C-alpha cells in the first residue's frame, strides 16, 4: 500500500462525503477500493504479503482516512482489533492462515454487543459431533455489513469464546438498521447468525492474559480517538474553506473580510490547536502500544494512558466542533455545508463509550491504586471482559 496511492484514493473520495451521508449511500465501493489498496493487511508483515506498517503509521492513516470520510475510518475498528490480536498470537499456523486471507484484502467485522437489559450473552456455539455452528443476534456490529469475516463472542456451554465466521455464509445476515444521528454509514446495526459453521481453527479460547487484554482495551478506545482526530481535522479544513470563501461580515461597513478578522482567526486558531493536539496524543499512544508487552503493569499503564487521552480529547473536540460556527453567520448552518455532521459524528462515537465513567475509574486508581472490577481481567471470567454497554468492542 503505497502512501501515494492511499493519498490519491483519499482525494478521490473526500468530496463525496457529505452527499454520501445525506443520501445514506453505504460505502461498499470505497471499502472495496481500500481492500484493493491492501489496507486490510497494512499491519501484516511484508514477508507474509502485508504492508508492514507500524501501529503509529497505521493510526496516521486511520486519521487521514477518517478526515476524508468519518464512517469509512470507523468501519475498520473491529478489523484492526482482530489483526492486533492476531499479531500477538503465539500460534504460527493460525497467524499464517489469517495473513493469507488479509493479504488478499479480506475485511474482518465484529459482533460483540447484544441488546439485553444486562451484559450476559445469548449467542451460543452448538456442537453436533464434529460440526460447530454459532447462532445468535448482535447489535452495534460496526463494519460487519462490509465484512468478509465476522469476529464474535459466544457461549460454549458456560465458557465465553471468540469465533470468526464467514460473513458470506447464508446463515449470516447484516442489516443496515443503524439509527444513530451520527456515523450513519458505519453499518453499526444488527447481525444475525443462524447455525453458521465455525472452522475449529477459528475458535479461540482466550488465555486470560492480562497484558493482552489491557492492550485490546486500549486499542478499542484509541481507534475511536483516531477517528475523532480525523473528524476534527476535516472540520478544520471545512472551516478554513468556509471562511476563505466568505465575504459577508457582521457589524458595520468598512470592517475587514472575515478571514482578516482577529476574532474569526482566534476561533480557527483554537480549532487548529485542538486538531493538532488530538492527533499528537493519538499518535503518541499508538507509539506506546506499538510493541506488544507481556508485562501486565506496562500494559495497564498504556491502557490508562489511552483512557486519560480520551478524557481530554473528547470534550476538547466536541467543544471545538460546537464553537467553530462562531466564525460565521447563519449560512454556516446550511444543510449543504453540513458542518453539523462533525459534531453529530463525534457525539455519536463519544456516546458509544461512557468516557465520563472512566474519569471516576482513573481517579480511583490515582487515589487508591485500584481499578473497578470491570478492569480486572480473569477475576470473574477466565476469558474476555464483558463488553460495556453499547460498546462496539
Amino acid at each position: 500500500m503505497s502512501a501515494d496511492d492511499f493519498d490519491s484514493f483519499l482525494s478521490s473520495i473526500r468530496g463525496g462525503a457529505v452527499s454520501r451521508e445525506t443520501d445514506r449511500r453505504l460505502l461498499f465501493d470505497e471499502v472495496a477500493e481500500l481492500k484493493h489498496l491492501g489496507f486490510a493487511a497494512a499491519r501484516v508483515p511484508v514477508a507474509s504479503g502485508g504492508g508492514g506498517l507500524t501501529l503509529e503509521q497505521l493510526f496516521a492513516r486511520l486519521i487521514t482516512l477518517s478526515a476524508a470520510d468519518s464512517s469509512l475510518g470507523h468501519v475498520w475498528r473491529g478489523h484492526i482489533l482482530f489483526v492486533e490480536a492476531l499479531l500477538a498470537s503465539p500460534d504460527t499456523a493460525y497467524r499464517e492462515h489469517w495473513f493469507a486471507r488479509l493479504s488478499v484484502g479480506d475485511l474482518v467485522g465484529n459482533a460483540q454487543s447484544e441488546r439485553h437489559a444486562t451484559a450476559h450473552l445469548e449467542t451460543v456455539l452448538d456442537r453436533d459431533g464434529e460440526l460447530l455452528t454459532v447462532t445468535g443476534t448482535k447489535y452495534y456490529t460496526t463494519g460487519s455489513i462490509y465484512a468478509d469475516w465476522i469476529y464474535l463472542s459466544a457461549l460454549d456451554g458456560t465458557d465465553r469464546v471468540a469465533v470468526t465466521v464467514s460473513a458470506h455464509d447464508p446463515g449470516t445476515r447484516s442489516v443496515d438498521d443503524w439509527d444513530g444521528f451520527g456515523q450513519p454509514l458505519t453499518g453499526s446495526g444488527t447481525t444475525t447468525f443462524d447455525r453458521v459453521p465455525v472452522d475449529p481453527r477459528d475458535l479461540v479460547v482466550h488465555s486470560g492474559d492480562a497484558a493482552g487484554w489491557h492492550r485490546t482495551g486500549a486499542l478499542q478506545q484509541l481507534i475511536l480517538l483516531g477517528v475523532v482526530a480525523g473528524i476534527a481535522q476535516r472540520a478544520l479544513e471545512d472551516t478554513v474553506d468556509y471562511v476563505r470563501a466568505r465575504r459577508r461580515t457582521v457589524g458595520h461597513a468598512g470592517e475587514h473580510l472575515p478571514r482578516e478578522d482577529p476574532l474569526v482567526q482566534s476561533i480557527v486558531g483554537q480549532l487548529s490547536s485542538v486538531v493538532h493536539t488530538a492527533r499528537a496524543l493519538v499518535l503518541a499512544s499508538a507509539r506506546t502500544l506499538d510493541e506488544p508487552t507481556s508485562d501486565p503493569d506496562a500494559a495497564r499503564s498504556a491502557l490508562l494512558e489511552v483512557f486519560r487521552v480520551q478524557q481530554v480529547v473528547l470534550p476538547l473536540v466536541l467543544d471545538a466542533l460546537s464553537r467553530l460556527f462562531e466564525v460565521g453567520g447563519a449560512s454556516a448552518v446550511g444543510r449543504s455545508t453540513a458542518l453539523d455532521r462533525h459534531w453529530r459524528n463525534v457525539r455519536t462515537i463519544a456516546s458509544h463509550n461512557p468516557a465520563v465513567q472512566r474519569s471516576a475509574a482513573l481517579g480511583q486508581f490515582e487515589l487508591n491504586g485500584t481499578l473497578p472490577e470491570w478492569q480486572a481481567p480473569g477475576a470473574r471470567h477466565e476469558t474476555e471482559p464483558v463488553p460495556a454497554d453499547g460498546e462496539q468492542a
Partner: protein
Amino acid sequence: MSETATIDRDLAQRFAPLFDELGRDAAERERERRLPYAEVEALRQAGFTRVTLPRRYGGEEATHGGLFELLAELARRDPNLAQLFRSHFSYIDRTLHAPASADREARLARLADGAIVGNASHERSTAKVGSLATRLTETPGGLRLNGTKFYSTGTLFADLVGVAAEQDGEFVSVLVETDATGVERIDDWTGFGQRLTGSGTTVFTEVAVDASAVTRREPERPSHGGAFVQLVLLAAVTGIGRAIVDDAGVFVRTRTRTYSHGAASTAQADPIVQEVVGELSAKSFAADAALAAATTALGRSSAAILGADPDLVQERIAAVEIATARAQLVILPAVLDAATALFDVGGASAVETHRALDRHWRNARTIASHNPSRFKARAIGDHVVNGTPVASWWSTGEA
C-alpha cells in the same frame, strides 16, 4: 405579589396545557418537516399572539418579563414555535411605543383581530453593510416594492410582513399583506436546526403599497428593538436548556440497561450520572437567570420610552443593550455545552434518531449562529475598556 407578577403567573399557568399539547409531537414534526400551521393557529385561537396587547385590544397586558418567560416555556416544548413569533412580538412592542396616531390605532386593531406579523429584513444580496437592495419606488400607479429577502422568520405563518427597504436613499419599514399580489413566500430554509421556523425567502415583485403602510426609520428616535429581537432568540435557547434537563431526567429514569462500567447498578443511582444531570440543571439555571435579568432591563427601558423622559430613555436603552449582549454570552455557551453534555448521561441508545436528542444542539447552534457571540463579546469589552457604546442594531453585508 404585585399585580403584574400575578398577571404573568396566571398567563404561564393558563398556557401550560396548550404548550404541553403542542410539544408532544415536536420531534416528529421536525423529522417529517411538517410546518406548524395548525400549532400557530391553535396559539392564535388561545390568544397567545395578543398577550402583550392592552386589554382594550383583546390583550392580557403581559409584562416583558411575562412574555419572555412564556416564550421560553413555549420553546421548551418546541423552539421553532417560539422563534417564529420573533417579529410579531417585536412589532407589537414597537407599535405600542409609537406616538398616538390613526395608523397606530389601525395597526393595533389588526393585531387585536389576531393578525400575525412576520419579517423580511435580511438580504443575501451583495449590498454593502448598512445598505439594502430592496427598494420602495414612486411610480405613476403609486408606491411599488421590489426585492428579495432571506431569513424571513415566521413570514410563512404571518398575515402581515414588515419589510425593510430603501426609498430614495432612506430606510423605511413597509407593512405588506402576505397574500398581496406580488408577494411570494418560499419554504427554502435549509438550516440543520430550527427547520420549521419558515425562515426562508420572501420575494416582492411590483407589490402595490399604500402610503399609510410606510414608516420612516428614525435613527434619532431611541429604540430597544435590537435587544428585543435578540432576547426572543435567547428565550428560545433558554427554553431549549430547560428541555435538555427534562429529557435527561426522562432518559435516565427510563433506562433499563445496566452498565458494566457504571459506578452503580442503575443509571438513576449512579453518582456520575447524577453529577452530569446536576451540571445540566445549573447551566439551564444560568440561562434562566440571565434571561430574566435582561428582560427586566427591557421592561425598564419600555417604561422609560412610554414615560418619554429622553435622558432616562437613553440610559435605560444603553443598559438593556449591555444586559442583552451579556445574557447572550451566558445563555448560548451554557445551553450549547448542556446540549453536548446531555449525552454524558451515558448510553449509545441516546443517539438513536427517533429520540432526536441531537435536535437540542442543532436548534441551539442554529439560533446562536444568527448573531455571532464573538462580536458581542468584543463590543462589551470595548465598552468596558474604552467606554464605547454597545451598538443597538446589527446588520450584515459585504465587507
